[in-house]
């Protein structure tokens, strides 16, 4: 078990491309840290540098206070689980799990004990003598985990270990990975592109984009206090709604209507020196069907009326999609997020707003609905650089 420190770690490829830029992360002993971001953000490169599979161009990587930049992977005492599982097809499950121990010249009896112990934990005992080719996806995944845990390494590195599983199994394995990590208490760095996995698994989440760390924090703090547009849009599902807004005289002019800033927001915006043109963000759960609220509550926030485009009834609540007239919010971050989620459903005129309403809402597709929103929950962003203007440290 170990503390892992990345100190201004940078990866530049020989052709000059900058894959990872000055990443600073201090991972405490026993901590479960998630690196998350869209493909190409540098998260896997960062993981490979911790593993020693890629060289560090600049900066320092310390494990337990010791610089390990120059150490070969085998001398770092770190285990890794790969997305493809990377099981050796010519070895049985037992041999696969024993491989790292055999390389470390552990005596046969200990190897047998450790492999069987790991197999018992991962429920693989009856599959020990099969070849990986004859196992299901979930079983292969567990073998890969087993190979990592048998040698009791200083840290686990996991590179999208669940993304080759089907949705149901993925959720199941997510829980077992979390349980296993807590049980073993081993420092773990986990890479994923799936924000749900990041939110549910980690003690702390590192959001990366374009080789830069965007924000590091607990899942809840990332959700509530995103440092910029990218993090705001990336974390949370359905994602935050973004609308263009103009700030004048303490009032916000938005496609949802004009309304005054609440005291809290105004103070933050003033401190942050907010410009006139802004992007406003509001999460789906901060909307409600106005018909379900009493007048006092209604008066505390703003309302808008629009026709329901799509209605998804989840049972516990309803998601209603609207198109609101006016400009759409634009910024480099938002475009990247749209490209990442593959959503090309940019409406021609107006922006889409997703709202989460109570199950009791009488919303119907095609008919108008008046929706209330909570102006105290809005986030404001600078469209130029995407930084948040409502960040309360």
């Amino acid at each position, binding site marked *: 078990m170990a503390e892992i420190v990345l100190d201004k770690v940078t990866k*530049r*490829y*020989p*052709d000059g*491309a900058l*894959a990872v830029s000055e990443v600073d992360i201090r991972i405490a002993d026993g901590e479960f840290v998630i690196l998350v971001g869209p*493909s*190409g953000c540098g998260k*896997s*490169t960062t993981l*490979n540098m911790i593993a*020693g*599979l*890629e*060289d560090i*161009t600049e900066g320092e990587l310390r494990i337990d206070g010791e610089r390990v930049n*120059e150490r*070969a*992977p085998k001398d770092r005492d770190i285990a890794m689980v790969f997305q493809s599982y990377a099981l050796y097809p010519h070895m049985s499950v037992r041999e696969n799990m024993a491989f790292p121990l055999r390389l470390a010249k552990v005596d046969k009896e200990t190897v047998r004990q450790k492999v069987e112990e790991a197999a018992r934990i991962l429920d693989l005992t009856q599959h020990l003598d099969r070849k990986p080719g004859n196992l299901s996806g979930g079983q292969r995944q567990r073998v890969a985990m087993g190979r990592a845990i048998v040698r009791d390494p200083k840290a686990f590195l996991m590179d999208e270990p669940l993304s080759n599983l089907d949705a149901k199994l993925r959720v199941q394995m997510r829980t077992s990975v979390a349980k296993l990590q807590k049980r073993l208490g081993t420092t773990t760095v986990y890479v994923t592109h799936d924000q749900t996995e990041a939110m549910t698994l980690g003690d702390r989440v590192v959001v990366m984009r374009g080789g830069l760390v965007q924000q590091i924090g607990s899942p809840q703090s990332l959700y509530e206090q995103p440092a910029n547009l990218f993090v705001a849009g990336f974390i949370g599902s359905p994602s935050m709604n973004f609308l263009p807004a103009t700030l004048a005289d303490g009032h916000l002019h938005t496609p949802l209507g004009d309304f005054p800033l609440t005291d809290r927001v105004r103070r933050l915006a003033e401190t942050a020196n907010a410009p006139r043109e802004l992007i406003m963000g509001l999460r789906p759960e901060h909307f409600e069907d106005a018909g379900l609220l009493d007048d006092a509550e209604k008066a505390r926030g703003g309302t808008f009326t629009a026709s329901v485009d799509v209605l998804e009834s989840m049972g516990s609540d309803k998601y209603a999609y609207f198109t609101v007239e006016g400009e759409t919010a634009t910024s480099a971050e938002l475009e990247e997020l749209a490209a990442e989620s593959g959503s090309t459903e940019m409406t021609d005129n107006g922006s889409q707003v997703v709202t989460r309403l109570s199950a009791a809402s009488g919303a119907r597709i095609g008919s108008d609905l008046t929706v209330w929103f909570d102006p105290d929950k809005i986030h404001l962003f600078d469209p130029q650089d995407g930084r948040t203007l409502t960040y309360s440290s």
Partner: protein
Amino acid sequence: MSEAVDTPRAAVKGASDGKKAERRLAFWLCAPAALVMLAVTGYPIIYSIWLSLQRYDLRFPSQHEFVGLDNYITVLTNSYWWTAFGVTAFITIVSVVIELVLGMALALIMHRTLVARGLIRTVALIPYGIVTVVAAFSWRYAWDANTGYLSQLFDPDGAPLTQRASALTIIIAAEVWKTVPFMALLLMAGLALVPEDLLKAASMDGATAWQRFTKVMLPVMKPAILVALLFRTLDAFRVFDNIFVLTSGAQETGSVSMQTYNNLIKGLNLGIGSTMSVLIFLAVALIAFIFVKVFGAAAPGNSDNGRR
């Protein structure tokens, strides 16, 4: 994610010049193979062009001199050469067409048979693997007037290998027998690329079995078919072993390869032999060019996206 530059040498400590190290390693790995191929084909071809411009007959070594294109004129105005060329072209076209049809049939059989699939695939490989000369002797003795069980199939006093038409037919049959399995294997690889769902969809759309074959399978398999045809055409054009054993080129059944060989070994005329070598090389290059440019055949293994 960008892929790790991960050659055995560059992986661990090869610092920023990992790319250079990779190239250096690649160079040393490829150099021996490239060198051998170049030395045994590149140089001789150039040497061959040089020789083709000289009078050089080993029986009259004193008359060794530069004669420009005289040898080409000699060969190209020679009726034996054109006969051999015609025979080669005839054998090539007829045998490749038959091979394509039979090969496709065999490919479908190997791909779809319900009974003894492994056995069929094994047996079909025997013609491919067997030494051509051995097969040729088998055919020769089969049609030989004295020993052959087939010799009197069509004519009780027949000696089929001594008649030009029947001899050519037998040569083609021997070629076809030997190479249909290879053709079938290449086509079977193409067949495996036709998704089963596509055929199901076609039959849902109302296509008959024949329509499914011609409208769905053949178009999807086209690249594989072209590659197979290209390979086989060039291979058929060099036909030699079968003719050598079956007729020795008698009754005007010799191919251009036979002519070249005879010129070299029997005639010992290096100038004329080289001229023929160059002409055959040009003919083959032309065939390959036509296949690639006109039919758009892709060179196999040429897909550069193989790096994962």
